[in-house]
């Protein structure tokens, strides 16, 4: 197996719903179009389909939580720097 290309393919079907749907409809063709070897294409035909759907859903949920956390952190840091800026100006005046 060619390691990196295979992991990149898995990543795509985990995060891209359209790519995942194409893969489910025709696993060998989708794997071939990603440049994977015949051995890899055969391995992917035996995918744990139930697990794939559940894992993709779980990963999407985690990405959503991360986005929310990132927004909260950015908002908090923005407020902090604004507060620091105004505090400094207030002290100078």
């Amino acid at each position, binding site marked *: 197996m060619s*390691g990196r290309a295979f992991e990149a*393919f*898995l*990543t*795509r079907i985990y995060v891209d719903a359209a790519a995942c749907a194409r893969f489910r409809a025709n696993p060998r063709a989708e794997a071939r179009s990603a440049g994977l070897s015949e051995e890899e294409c055969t391995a992917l035909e035996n995918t744990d389909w*139930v*697990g794939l759907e559940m894992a993709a859903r*779980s990963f999407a949920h985690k990405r959503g939580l991360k986005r929310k956390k990132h927004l909260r952190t950015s908002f908090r840091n923005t407020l902090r720097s604004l507060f620091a800026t105004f505090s400094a100006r207030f002290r100078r005046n």
Partner: protein
Amino acid sequence: MNKFTDRVGLGWRADLAAGIFSNLDRIDLLEVIADDFFNAPRREVRALQTLASQVSVVLHGVGMGLASSAPVEAKRLEKMGQLVEQVRPQFWSEHLAFVRGGGLEIGHLAAPPRTVDTVEGAAKNMSRATAIVSSKPIMENIATLIDPPGSTLSESAWISGILASSDCDLLLDLHNVYANSLNHGYDPKAFLRQIPAARFRAIHIAGGKFISAPDGSQRLLDDHLHDVPDPVFDLLEEAAALSPNSLTVILERDGAYPSMDCLLAQMELARQALARGRARRAVAEEVLV
């Protein structure tokens, strides 16, 4: 007499801070998510340093993706190295997972294909991590809802292969073992006997919930939002019976927080499971002598 100095700690979460500070005499150590501090303001890092001066701290990384055929990015390791230098934890840990590929982020820990390629890739990444961070990581087994496509090795053979190819020890997540054993049909106690117990260094315990699959079956999701189930304490007893090392056990809870008393009670159950396992080990050692 028990010759081991096993310790039981808790994952540091800001929501639990008040309860943690009120019960430091019952918490042997805290595990802090390192990635939360990689780009944090200096005062947050200073607060972490103050915490580490009061209680033993270990750092836990979640975003490196060391179990990959792709080389881990140096900048991620440098950030960990800087934080390790600032905080001086007892150890740092990461996961046997990949988290990105082809320029895309999965957003969570994914199980790579269990192959010779990923054994070699993980060993190289762990060696690179040790060199850049200046201390070796302890590596954690992960839970996976999907049987990793393209695998040619069993999970136990894959983990054993990585440990044999590196000098890093194992952070054995027992809820992940339990979840994978239910989801992919193996005996979790047999699994523990198939991996090298001499490399058990730390242990995670946590809880999860069953979720429905599209075909009507159920799989166990390791969400860290529920109490530790009894079978995980049984596995902890088993791990303590097998391990020749003192163990650091950490209770992970990421939300839906119960009372601090409830978390402390689970930590006490962990201590009891460790004691049962150590007693079994002592009996077995006496028989051998």
